[in-house]
């Protein structure tokens, strides 16, 4: 085959080398820049990736091995203190060395590498491989086939270099007058480290960096991190403040005409904070070279197989990378966490590592983290199983549901049956509101009976589904009666439950007031979040006056719909009900309107719960597909929630 590879970065060069080794192809690489011109500093690989690369080409692996900087610790610096996390083996290589080794090996294998060269699309090839990076011109020229979508991350970052090798992967968190700034840094040569400074857009603007020159930006970073740098030299190399772009493409293969396949950054990107962009690109190259060798008689099958093999792996990393990016975008919320908790939170941020994994990697960190939950000395007692006091009521552990946790009632209506039900640890009281009058829930939710419930109440007269009659807009008199019903029902549960949850979620009556999607009132019970909170707050206050146990409030921190409840609204709700005597909030999501788009994966509510807990200081209960005690331990040890509901 005659193959054109566009782009002489790691993906293009590695693919060229491997495909030449596996078949007698004529391979030409077109690189726009001259030989040796490179941007960036170092590139990170995990041990797993290195093993994979070693399997593909032993000789290259030996050359790699001589050039790698290896480490096994993560070092977290906050407020002049350092927390060291053990058991984190990774390696890095200078980007310049990586490209040199790859181009040398590719040339030896017979690849024709042309620098300062432009690919001519009119020249005939059997296959064109676009490895021309995130701004791939070949992908852009055929966007309707590849259907790319881009998510521009809100934080700002700048790539700098440090003139010495750090002892391990290093994070530095530095509060400034403008807000929190932080560093991701790692050694890649005996005398050099990559040093990436990141911050939120607001802090970046407040610091005047939106108007700063390269020299001014460098000076700002030197000054901000002077305490950490202790005189070590920080360098810039045409460094600019950037916003990371997560790129996804619906297709990676263009059939018809000359077959065109995209790989590496041309096809997908993953936020730099999990250090896997180059790793993914090189794995793409490896798999494409192998599927071409395996299906040498049918090019279309080889390309489809490449995409089928790589897509699920790439998507998994992109998901982890988004979780990690999201962690950093909101890391300022976590400033109140103890050092051990903060470290545990950081290393479990992408959801790929749990309490038991950390236990194997660094047992002493887990002891310290367990102790931090109890505000005590290091302990082997895992946090989900440690006792807890909520609102003066002591519970044996921090689990709801499952075989070990507290028992919880289904939502019980204060109108119909509020004073009934068996004794339980946690009782949930509700008013169905706009969802009243439905058929039995085992036969499907929100199917109103013929005629429906003409007395259904809601904040505004918006039918819950197309088949519901519009509910009645609740009058002040209606609301006073509902408040009274909650207070009466709560009183009946004294002595028969220990924690009472008021249901302000799932699109029921209280929720219809909280969400801007369903509350269109112009009186004192609508409008701003304070207005929308007025009625739910009066319910909470009334319940608090008759209920003797611990009091909780369940609410949706997002509607999973555009223009729904915001994170600021959700934090305001938690703070307001806590001031009215609520001891804990359960963070839920969705349901204000019947149709929404929630990512129903295990722990999908945890990031929201963490924001609210750490922004407001209000204790948080979270559930949502959490099935193991290990997951619960991870969530509690990381300070993302205080109690966990098991499925």
């Amino acid at each position, binding site marked *: 085959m005659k193959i054109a590879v566009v782009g002489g970065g790691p993906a293009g060069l590695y693919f060229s080398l491997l495909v030449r080794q596996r078949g007698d192809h004529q391979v030409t690489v077109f690189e726009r820049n001259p030989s040796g011109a490179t941007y960036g500093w170092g590139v990170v690989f995990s041990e797993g990736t290195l093993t994979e690369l070693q399997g593909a080409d032993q000789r290259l692996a030996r050359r790699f091995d001589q050039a790698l900087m290896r480490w096994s610790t993560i070092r977290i610096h906050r407020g002049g203190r350092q927390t060291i996390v053990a058991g984190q083996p990774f390696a890095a290589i200078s980007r310049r060395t990586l490209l040199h080794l790859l181009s040398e090996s590719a040339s030896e294998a017979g690849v024709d590498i042309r620098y300062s060269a432009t690919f001519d699309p009119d020249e005939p090839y059997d296959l064109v491989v676009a490895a021309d990076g995130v701004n791939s011109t070949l992908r852009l020229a055929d966007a309707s086939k590849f259907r790319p979508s881009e998510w521009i991350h809100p934080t700002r970052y700048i790539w700098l270099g440090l003139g010495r090798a750090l002892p391990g992967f290093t994070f530095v968190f530095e509060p400034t007058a403008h807000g929190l700034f932080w560093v991701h840094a790692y050694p890649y040569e005996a005398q050099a480290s990559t040093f990436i400074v990141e911050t939120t857009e607001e802090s970046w603007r407040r610091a005047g960096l939106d108007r700063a020159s390269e020299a001014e930006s460098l000076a700002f970073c030197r000054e901000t991190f002077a305490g950490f740098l202790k005189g070590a030299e920080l360098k810039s190399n045409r460094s600019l403040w950037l916003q990371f772009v997560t790129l996804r493409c619906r297709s990676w293969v263009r*059939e018809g005409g000359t077959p065109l396949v995209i790989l590496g950054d041309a096809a997908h990107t993953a936020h730099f904070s999990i250090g896997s962009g180059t790793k993914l690109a090189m794995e793409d190259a490896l798999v494409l070279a192998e599927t071409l060798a395996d299906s040498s008689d049918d090019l279309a099958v080889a390309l489809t197989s490449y995409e089928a093999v790589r897509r699920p792996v790439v998507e998994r990393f992109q998901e982890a990378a988004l979780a990690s990016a999201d962690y950093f975008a909101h890391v300022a919320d976590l400033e109140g966490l103890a050092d051990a908790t903060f470290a545990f939170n950081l290393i479990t941020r992408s959801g790929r590592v749990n309490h038991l994994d950390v236990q194997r990697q660094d047992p002493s960190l887990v002891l310290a983290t367990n102790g931090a939950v109890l505000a005590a000395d290091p302990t082997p007692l895992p946090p989900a199983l440690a006792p807890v006091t909520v609102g003066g009521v002591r519970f044996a552990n921090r689990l709801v549901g499952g075989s070990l946790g507290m028992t919880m009632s*289904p939502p019980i209506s204060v109108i119909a049956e509020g004073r009934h039900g068996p004794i339980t640890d946690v009782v949930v009281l509700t008013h169905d509101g706009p969802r009243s009058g439905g058929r039995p829930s085992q036969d499907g*939710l*929100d199917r109103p009976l013929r005629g429906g419930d003409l007395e259904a109440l809601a904040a505004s007269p918006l039918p819950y589904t197309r088949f519901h009659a519009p509910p009645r807009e609740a009058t002040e008199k209606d609301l006073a009666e509902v408040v009274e019903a909650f207070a009466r029902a709560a009183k009946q549960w004294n002595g028969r439950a220990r924690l009472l949850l008021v249901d302000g979620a799932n699109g029921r009556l209280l929720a219809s007031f909280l969400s801007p999607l369903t509350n269109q009132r112009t009186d004192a019970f609508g409008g701003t979040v304070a207005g929308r909170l007025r009625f739910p707050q009066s319910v909470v206050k009334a319940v608090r006056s008759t209920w003797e146990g611990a009091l909780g409030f369940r609410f949706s921190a997002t509607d999973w719909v555009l223009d729904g409840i915001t994170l600021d609204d959700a934090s305001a709700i938690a703070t307001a009900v806590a001031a009215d005597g609520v001891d804990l909030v359960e963070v839920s999501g969705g349901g204000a309107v019947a149709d*929404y*788009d929630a990512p*129903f*994966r*295990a722990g999908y509510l945890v990031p929201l719960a963490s924001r609210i807990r750490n922004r407001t200081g209000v204790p948080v209960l979270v559930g949502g597909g959490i099935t193991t005690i290990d997951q619960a331990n991870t969530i509690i040890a990381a300070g993302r929630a205080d109690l966990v509901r098991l*499925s």
Partner: protein
Amino acid sequence: MRVGIGLPSAIPARGPDLVVQWAQRAEAAGFSSLGVLDRVNYDAYEPLVSLAAAAAVTERIRLVTMVVIGPLHNTVLLARQAASLDALSGGRLTLGLGVGARLDDYEHAEIDHRGRGRRLTEQLARMRDHWEDGQVGPRPVTPGGPDLLVGGSSGPSLLRLARLADGYVHGGGPARSFAAAASKAKIAWEEVGRPGKPQLWAQAYFGLGDPAAGRSFLLDYYAFTGAFAERIAEENLETPERIVSFIRSYEEAGCEELVLLPTTADINEVDRLAAVALA
């Protein structure tokens, strides 16, 4: 885990007698269900008519659609058809519904392709209403009507399943992708506050007697997916070892009923599969 077998109703090489003979043979062999596919723009028998023919010559075996393209149908007429089949078969129908994968099915049926997801959601709710209220006949034998299965793993699809269906039906592929989808289905179900658990169904293709013929059927049936048809054909279960391993992997992943769909119109495939899958 129960194991069902597909009817050869979408395999062009079938003769007119094959569907009823196949149904009788499958029931005698002990399969738990008979599954049918739906495709407008292909030489395939209509799924509910095929199941009606099978119902007439069997007594015990469950009848399942995997899946009928709901939005192509008028909801009341589909509810009547399903209720009739449920009644005529003595309550043996499980109705899988989906939006289908092909635009041309909608074009041939002269139905708007847009809004199909929303229409399917409303169909689920309306069919249940019809079956419960009995304003349009007949009344199904199964109380509340046949069980409803849907597929899809996007947020809105999972919500549709959790709120209005009785179970999830997986479209095919390795057991780990089934497990991931089933986990999301269970989470959505619990999170919306629906009591109980979703039923979990799955399907796969097999071809024991003449694997080459089976593969060419799949390449033709899935030609609209381009080179992806090759992968579907490659995943065809062609040996007893592969079938047993596949069944085990789905059982371990929590599947409750796996329906193995034929790829050739050879009646002896029923007994070949039974010998391996029901042993």
